[in-house]
């Protein structure tokens, strides 16, 4: 039963990713797009770890930590550009 639940929840997360991607495509401002990319990333972290359980390959879990870190980097690049206009200052 565990494997069925894991597969079902992974489909829910796929739905989340698709819906948020449409927000990225139509969101009027840059802020909406970056927020939706954050949501996509947090969804795909859980999606990838669920598939790592389903495949019974625990070492595939390593990829989740960088995914959580780098979207933060994208956030602050855009934020600094919008706030200051110069990334070095």
């Amino acid at each position: 039963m565990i494997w069925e639940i894991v597969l079902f929840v992974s489909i829910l997360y796929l739905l989340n990713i698709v819906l948020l991607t449409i927000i990225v495509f139509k969101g009027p401002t840059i802020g909406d797009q970056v927020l939706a990319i954050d949501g996509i990333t947090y969804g795909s972290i859980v999606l990838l770890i669920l598939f790592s359980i389903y495949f019974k390959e625990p070492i595939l879990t390593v990829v989740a930590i960088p995914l959580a870190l780098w979207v933060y980097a994208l956030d602050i690049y855009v934020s600094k550009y919008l706030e200051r206009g110069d990334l070095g200052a």
Partner: protein
Amino acid sequence: MNVYAETIVYLIMAVVSLLSVVAVYLAIVERDLIKAVIYSALQSGFYAVLYYLLMAPDIVLVYLPVAVGLIPGVLIVLISKTERWEKE
């Protein structure tokens, strides 16, 4: 259930690559270059999921910092030092 599992994995691969086509198209036609960089970062995220499902964790580990962490930053530096809008 295993039969469905194979189809579901391939379905996620197909959906993710179709969404990446849309992201690439919008990145190419968009006039605001900051938005183009954001679309290209989105495409990189989709490719990372695709690499994961193609069983290449090494490539995911090197591709995520490079394509989501460093290249958007470097391109935004270039845009902030030059110009933001692509003229008609």
